[in-house]
């Protein structure tokens, strides 16, 4: 089983590749259909943000094991060297958008996944790390 992959997001086809890879890996790890949909949707949101707001970036998918109880999960990291995000609090509010979208992406990803961390430096880029654990 291929338990790690990295997908370049340079154009909109990267979005499709990333979510296909995410669906496959989450299925292999043993996630049920609802969690597969949650994980795939989260990946799609993160990949689309890279496509929309930066020149290029990547989605890294890894199967991980929890330290304390050995539970399996999937880690999704979205990394880009784009403009960064000025105000992290704003972008986590439902409905906040600078592109005429629904502004549902980032707050949605946070709800879909179990762990969510965002690091961003204006002018340097953004790294968003999320994990979903098997129940």
């Amino acid at each position, binding site marked *: 089983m291929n338990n790690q992959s990295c997908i370049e997001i340079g154009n*909109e086809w990267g*979005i*499709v590749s990333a979510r*296909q890879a995410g669906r496959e890996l989450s299925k292999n790890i043993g996630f049920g*259909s609802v969690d597969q949909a949650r994980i795939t949707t989260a990946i*799609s949101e993160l990949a689309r943000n890279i496509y929309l707001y930066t020149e290029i970036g990547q989605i890294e998918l890894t199967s991980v094991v929890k330290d304390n109880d050995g539970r399996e999960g999937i880690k999704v990291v979205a990394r880009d060297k784009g403009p960064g995000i000025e105000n992290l609090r704003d972008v986590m509010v439902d409905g906040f958008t600078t592109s005429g979208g629904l502004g549902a992406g980032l707050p949605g990803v946070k709800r*879909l996944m179990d762990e969510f961390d965002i690091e961003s430096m204006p002018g340097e880029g953004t790294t968003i790390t999320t994990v979903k654990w098997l129940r």
Partner: protein
Amino acid sequence: MRIPILKLGRYLLISVQVELDDQTALQFQEDLLNKIHQEGSLGVVIDLTSVDMIDSFIAKVIGDVVEMSNLMGAKVVLTGIQPAVAITLIDMGVSLQEVQTALDLEQGLERLQQELGG
């Protein structure tokens, strides 16, 4: 990739069978509106049975297409939304509230017929 649009009397039927990338979704939006205009359609059923993921972008495209169709005088019913997709949409906080839905294509058509009085 283009999503085929079938004509049934004054209705249009669409079954989305392909992975919905952005381009396909936007092309579909345009194709459907043109078809409604050409055919003077009164109702549209969009079947999503094969769609295994709807993110915020696709949700927006679907919401917009329903609103635009309504503006043109055609009622839209969405059918076959998978349980996993429905749950994910709620988690995302995306509501397709004003959108009519039904379980499958057949019930979608019945719904239209009731609403439009035959």
